[in-house]
């Protein structure tokens, strides 16, 4: 057999999806920081998390990451994309770039992604359900209602005016400045 015909195959890159995933993780991190100061539903959830609780989302193996931590004032602070994974209390890994892309672009809900084994997690899972609620509420602000309805069992109970006001505010100030 001519073994020269059978060479190793290096993994291809998907630069567009990779870049978009990283961008959305940044948007998500900044939105969490901003909304955790203003949305009462997120405030209520985060209040139940331990002080200094740090949550990280990471696309395996190196497709991007973002981390947020709960501050003493009960808000979330975005820690960037390069936070030391070993210091996080919980790391939620998205198993593939495709699952991450589907989730982060509003094609796949968090519950369904978990049901399809698209995610795994290291650390204290006691707050997982609360974390999922916070992510769902954040998505309800970032995505239009017709998309959110596909992603969640029920839309979070956010009054219409607040939803529109905080959505505009998050896109104008929250993502850019984390305010």
């Amino acid at each position: 057999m001519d073994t020269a015909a059978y060479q190793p195959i290096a993994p291809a890159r998907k630069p567009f999806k990779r870049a978009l995933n990283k961008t959305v993780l940044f948007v998500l991190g900044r939105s969490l920081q901003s909304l955790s100061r203003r949305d009462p539903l997120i405030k209520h959830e985060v209040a139940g998390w331990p002080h200094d609780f740090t949550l990280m989302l990471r696309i395996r193996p190196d497709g991007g990451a973002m981390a947020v931590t709960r501050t003493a004032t009960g808000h979330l602070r975005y820690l960037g994309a390069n936070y030391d994974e070993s210091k996080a209390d919980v790391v939620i890994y998205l198993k593939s770039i495709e699952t991450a892309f589907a989730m982060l672009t509003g094609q796949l809900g968090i519950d369904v992604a978990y049901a399809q084994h698209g995610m795994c997690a290291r650390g204290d899972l006691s707050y997982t359900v609360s974390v999922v609620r916070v992510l769902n509420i954040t998505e309800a602000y970032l995505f239009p209602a017709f998309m959110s309805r596909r992603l969640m069992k029920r839309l979070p109970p956010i009054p219409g005016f607040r939803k529109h006001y905080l959505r505009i505010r998050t896109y104008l100030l929250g993502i850019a400045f984390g305010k």
Partner: protein
Amino acid sequence: MLPSYYEFSFPVKIISGHTALNNLPAELIQSNVQRPLIVSDPGVTKAGLAKIVIDAFAESGLTIGALYDQVPPESSTLVVNQLAALYRERECDTIIAIGGGSVIDTAKGINILVSLGGSDVRNYRGAETLPGPLRPFFVAPTTAGTGSEVTNSAVIADPEKGVKMLFVSEYLMPRTAFIDSRMTLTLPPKLTAATGMDALTHAMEAYISIQKNPLSDAFAWQAIRLIGANLRNVAQNPSDQEGRLALANASTMAGTAFSNSMVGCVHSMGHATGAVAHVPHGIAMNIFLPFGLEFNLERRADLIADLLLPLAGADVYAATPADQRARQTIAEVRRLKEDLHASTGLARSLQEAGVKPEQLEDIAKLAINDGSAMMNPEELRVEDALALAKRAYEHG
């Protein structure tokens, strides 16, 4: 309709029979291990069940490294860490768990440490992150309810922090589970009824979960059929060895089903009720099951209707108009609860289980943060959980 994507893992060899454990030493040799640490609890020893296992080793040529029968009712990271040290000290090369959920979860924890190294199992907590296969270990369940002998998870309490830690990995599953009717023959009727309803809940919630798949459906279906046909009889005639074997098999099948498709809001409510009011898990499942099915009726009516056939049999299914089958399934669950209450005194409501009305809010708040809620078809919010708890408080 098939799910767009699913996973199913069931690497456990099942050995079922009235004397299944006689082949335990042969299974060890087959797996190339020879010196087990046996893990159990005081109740198992008292009931003479550890002796059945030890007797099976006669003339096998295998030495039991140690028998530890002091696992507490709630498995603890401290005990796991200590037993991993004992395993190493006695130069064991495998583990045999004889007991219920706590004993089996303890064995799973020990197996993590002795396979992957380290002295504190807490470092391995998480979901689907254990690196690689663990050593083969063996399980002989002594209750017919938890299904832990075939599940991919372990819940181990951390006594220092006062929290329960979750470990999820397909590698947690044992090499072989022995479903031996002798091991459940001495279970008292009320405990038989409660564990049977736990298994029924596993199967029914697995069948309607958002993670359901055709393979888990098959296991859930058979489990429900066996429970529907045998639970009443065995609760009334505890020495019915055939019925015992059927229920033990049903528990294993239900465990396989929910290990691959998860459970739902009945478990969320049950875990919370256990934590707040110390109601045993099986009793809580018995109380909440019909209410959980009702809660999911709008989204899962067709699936709940399906379950009438295995639960009540072909005659009842055929006699019930199609549009009434889902309600009839729930009615059959209630009828089973009533019958078990009449024969064993099993509590039907939270009130009968000793829960106080002022505890209902705490139960609701805790239930919505339970991981089982994620795979429930309907979203469980605090107001829903409170309404469920209030209904389950007064009614059966």
